[in-house]
């Protein structure tokens, strides 16, 4: 039960930070998203984000900051195995599922609905 509470608190806090960036610092939604992704990747680079996931579970792995963490994680893993070029080949290693899903489901819904806004 405690696990769920921490997931809620940590996940909610990340969202609150995003909301403050938009409302108080007048960041656009795109800037807010990028800030969270970059923050996640920096924390990931120092090995801190995985600790946060271990602690808060989905509360840390679902928000967009987790995406930044996974970009860095994939790049570092691949770099360890294949050398420095792995930074380039590995960056989408872990995140490819998310990116592919976005493209494929985006395409499918565009077929079904009128996508022009």
């Amino acid at each position, binding site marked *: 039960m405690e696990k769920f509470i921490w997931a809620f608190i940590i996940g909610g806090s990340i969202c609150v930070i995003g909301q403050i960036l*938009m409302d108080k610092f007048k960041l656009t939604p795109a800037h807010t998203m990028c800030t969270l992704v970059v923050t996640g990747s920096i924390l990931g680079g120092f090995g801190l984000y995985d600790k946060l996931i271990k602690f808060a579970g989905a509360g840390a792995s679902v928000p967009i900051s987790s995406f930044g963490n996974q970009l860095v994680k994939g790049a570092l893993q691949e770099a360890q195995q294949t050398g420095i070029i792995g930074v380039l080949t590995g960056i989408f290693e872990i995140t490819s599922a998310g990116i592919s899903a976005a493209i494929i489901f985006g395409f499918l819904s565009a077929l079904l609905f009128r996508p022009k*806004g």
Partner: protein
Amino acid sequence: MLQGHQSWVFENKPVIIGSAAIGGPFEAQGNFAADFDLLHDDLWLGQESYEKAEKKLLEQACETAIKKAGVKKEDIQFFMSGDLINQIISSSFTARTLGIPYVGIYGACSSSMEGLALASLMVDSRFATLALAGTSSHNAAAEKQYRYPTEYGAQKPPTAQWTVTGAGAGVVAQLGDGPKVTSATIGRVVDMGISDPFNMGSAMAPAAVDTIEAHFRDLNVSAADYDFIATGDLGRVGHIIARDLLKKHGIDIPEEKLTDCGMLIYKDTQPVFAGGSGCACAATTTYGHFLNRMRRGELKKILVVATGALLSPMSYQQKETIPCVAHAVSIER
């Protein structure tokens, strides 16, 4: 005739012999559904794009107004129109359809009264016997151009406003039956340094106050001379600011006499944030609801102060502040 610094008094009292308001699905659920000549249940109006839909709205408003005026479009000398789409294509493309000599104007959401003031000026000075003023806006087309594409799902703050989907048009004549345009005040551009495109009501309020002040000063009138003064699209946020500013400037307008088309057009239950906005907000409310009430004899004299935020998507991306303008037209039975 020029009176004071920036106001015109129309001595020959040009008459609005026909007017029309066209609306979309959201306006059909609003307060003034009965005052629209035509309401569409489809935001696309059966067109391929929202821009084409907006052009259709304006075409229908102009055609309906001409029909209700009982004149032929060939008899109208000039057509004055403006809208929010880049390079005012809704207006220009409608002018192509109508084939009436055309003066394209841009005053953002103040275009409705800017057009009516100019059309009245032409008719009053005998430079035209019949002139047509119109304007339009489309919620989805405006969102796409000024903010984010709707499917992006960007959050909006409570100060944001809802662009009215619709169009309004009026035929102004030298003679005939109908409400008369008696004076107009052309506003200065006022910029109080607000740069948030989701808070246009606050940006526009000082411009509305400036024009109301100029109108009262130039014509030596007060709120007592009008049934009410309606600003264009300040919304609930801008309305409160306008009230405070008027008080600060020592202009006394009783609470019930100052209203705003953006607050009136939608029901409180509709999710429109701070209220309605867009060229069609003041246009459909005036050419539909207000003029209908005037024709029924419920109103004697009103002042419509259409407010416009003169920003462009480029200017706000470059972090410029939002200059605003307001034009006032007084209409009398």
